[in-house]
Every structure is written in C-alpha cells, then in structure tokens.
C-alpha cells in the first residue's frame, strides 16, 4: 500500500471488555499539518493516540506511518522513536533533571554519546524557553514548565510527528498559555502534530483541521472556521457552541 500521507488511519476499532471505544475511525495527516481532535470525554480520543503509538493494540484497522504499516510492525520500538508523545500528566522521569529527561531517549535508545546528547538537550530546552532550568528536577518545576520539558523531550528524538494527549488539562489556566505558545511556535515551524485538546480558542487558531468525535466515531472533520461557524452536523454545533458560550461567558 502506498500513500502520500504521513499518517494514515483506516477503520480503527477497539473495545475494552464490552465497551466499544473506537468504532471505525479513519483519517489522515500530512507532513506539517496540525489537527486537533475534540469531543466529549470518554469518546476514544486518547485511545486513538495510544493506538498510533501502539501503547494500545487496536482490534481491527490499520495505521500507516509513511507507508509502513505500524499495526503489523515487528519493530515497534523503532517506530515509537519516530512518534513523539506528550502526556496529560507530563510523564517526566522524576529522578532525572530536565536535561536528563531530554537526554535519556538519546543516550539509551539512540545510543548517542553523552556530550552530543547534552548539546541536543540544551538546544531543545532553549527552544521551549527552559535552558535556565536544565538542572532542575521535575518536582522543582511548575506544571507549565514540566509540560514544556515533556515537549522538549519529544522534540529531541526528531520525531516525524508529535501526539499531544490533552497537554494542558492538568494545568492551571494561568499556565496553559506558556504551553500553548510553544505548540503554536512548533506548528508555525512546520512540525506535524495531532492534538487532543479542549482548548477551543487554541484549536481554532492553530489547527489546519478539527476532528469532532463522539462515541468512538468521527462525526465531522474540516477547517476550524467551517466547524465553528457553519458545521454540517447539528451535534457538532451543539458541542462547539457550548464551548464558545463558556469562552465568552466571563467577558
């Protein structure tokens, strides 16, 4: 199978026990694109990301990364190196400094020399504005700083795409801005990103396309302006309007 898409997902199905979480999900992502998946809680958004990284094995369906079918790949460790993952709870290694967190994938997975890894780590920390905090441990960082270290750790591996699983949901509203700004910068630089998020304002300005999901199915996908102003489906309108109400309520 050949495809021009960087990421192609075909008819993904997944159940946990009797609970059908993904019910035939198909979409694609091109190089340099940013897509944001939105939808109510428990609709399988995170399961899609986990499936792309093979942290969850889909029951049915195929996922291709640049023409390689990762759903049947024998070398999943190699593929995971090419897909960055940014977690809601940061997933930083608590016993390592910010720099150590960014370095460990380079030294232990890519078998890079320590000095070289350190240079890359400092470069990526600088990129997310944290070079001053290189020697801080996760417990000495704020939530927003932790998440930016998480992003630097993903970037250091030079991934083909980065998956973001609700990267700002665990943060104070005051701290979400610094993380979203870094992500905006990455999008502008041409990084390919697939983001699960409830930050509608961010989705609207940064996403090339928004995917609206409910009950394990994609209801509608398209450019943000269309989905926010003139969606095809009543349900999309309902969901997005709720957020817009929330958004403007306090103003």
């Amino acid at each position: 199978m050949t495809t021009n898409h960087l990421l192609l997902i075909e008819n993904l199905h997944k159940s946990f026990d009797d609970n059908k979480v993904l019910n035939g999900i198909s979409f694609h992502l091109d190089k340099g694109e940013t897509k944001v998946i939105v939808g109510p809680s428990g609709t399988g958004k995170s399961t899609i990301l986990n499936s792309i990284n093979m942290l969850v094995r889909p029951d049915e369906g195929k996922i291709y990364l640049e023409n390689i079918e990762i759903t049947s790949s024998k070398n999943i460790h190699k593929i995971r190196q090419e897909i960055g993952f940014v977690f809601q709870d940061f997933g930083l290694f608590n016993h390592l400094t910010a720099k150590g967190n960014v370095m460990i994938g380079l030294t232990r997975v890519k078998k890079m020399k320590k000095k070289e890894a350190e240079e890359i780590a400092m470069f990526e920390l600088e990129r997310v504005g944290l070079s001053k905090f290189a020697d801080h441990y996760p417990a000495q960082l704020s939530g927003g700083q932790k998440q930016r270290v998480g992003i630097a750790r993903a970037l250091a591996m030079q991934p083909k795409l980065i998956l973001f699983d609700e990267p700002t949901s665990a943060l104070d509203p005051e701290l979400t801005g610094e993380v979203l700004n870094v992500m905006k910068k990455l999008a502008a630089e041409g990084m390919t990103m697939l983001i699960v998020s409830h930050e509608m304002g961010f989705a609207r300005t940064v996403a090339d396309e928004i995917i609206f999901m409910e009950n394990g199915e994609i209801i509608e996908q398209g450019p943000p302006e269309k989905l926010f102003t003139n969606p095809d489906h009543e349900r999309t309108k309902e969901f997005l309007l709720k957020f817009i109400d929330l958004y403007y309520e306090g103003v």
Partner: protein
Amino acid sequence: MSSLPYLLNGALVTIKLGIISMLLGFVVALPLAFGQVYGNRIIKKLVSVYERVVRSIPLLVILFLIFYGLPSLKIRLPEFTSAVLALGLRSAAYQSQIYRGAIQSVSGSQMKAALSLGMNRLTAFFYVILPQAVRIAIPPTGNEAAIVLKDTSVVYAIGVSELLRQGYYIITTHYEPMLIYLTVAFIYLILTVSINGLLSLFEKKFKIPGIGAEGGPNDY
C-alpha cells in the same frame, strides 16, 4: 571486663550472619518481586503462597525444620549455614513485598512514557523504574535489616556462637546475668543505630531534589 573480647567476637558473628542473611534475602526477593509485578497468574500465585507460608511460621520453627528436620531427608547442614538459610529465606518473603511495592509505586505512567520514547521494557525497567524504586525501598529495607540483625539472636538455639550465645557462655562462668545481658543489649543497640545511620546517609545521597521533607512543590 575480661569478657568483652568474647562478646565482640560474638558481635562479629552476629554482623556476619546479619549481612549474609540480608544478602541471601535480597537475591531471592528480587526475582520474587519481579515475578509478582511482571509475571503471569501462576507465577504471581506461587510467589504469594511462598510469602504467606513463610511469614506465618515462627523463625525458630523454620530454623528447627532446616537444622533438625532436613537431616531426616539426608540433608545435613552446618549450624551457620542453617542459620543463614532460615534468616535469609524468611527475610526474602518480607523483602520481596518491599520491592514489589516500590516497583509498583513507580510503574504506571513512567513505564508508558519510557516506552513512548522507544525503550524496550528491560531498558525502561533498569533506567527509569529501578532507580526510582530503589529510593522508595531504602527506608523499609533498613527496617528489615534491623529486624534481621536482632533476629539473629534466635539462632543461639542451634549453637551458633553469635552475640547472645557468647553472653550466655560468659554468664555460666561469671554469674553476672544482669551486667552481661545489658552489655549484650547495648551492643545490639549500637548495631541497630548504625544501620539507621547508614540508612539516612544513603537516603541523603540518593535524595531527589524537590521531593521529601524539605517541603518541595509537591508538599501540600
């Protein structure tokens, strides 16, 4: 106090017993803990049966089973070896619980993050899970070491010349039980306090900044 050298000799045997038993316990406990966390259902069950059985038998009974019981199966072990086996195998049941708990308290999202970077499970275990688990396990392992050290006194019953037995010998010739037993008790105290001291040294050395008693951002 001409009897002090005898007591110190006994203390040396006690220390040797304590260290070797603790090490035996560690070597047996680590795979047990590993099996309990990562093994299949049968392995998990076997380990938990071992832990349960060993922990519910008094140390003295385990010791007598090994020293007096095994010879009827034509297995005759010297006193010291029997003592180490009894102390070590029992400690393994407790130590495995310590390590299992420590590993489990790290695993979850740390393992997931490690895998997402492309690590395999073994690399993730050694470079991400273990370094954190060891730190968590230090204080309870120190407790266990103190318990094992004190429990070495039980093997006096099969004639190993450790600290308590040496004290007993001295009393049979000097008739000063209060003084001698107090001295024995004092030596145990010094040994246990040293273990605690060593332990806090370890804890300080391996402390992760920002986590712990100094009041990091995670302390509410």
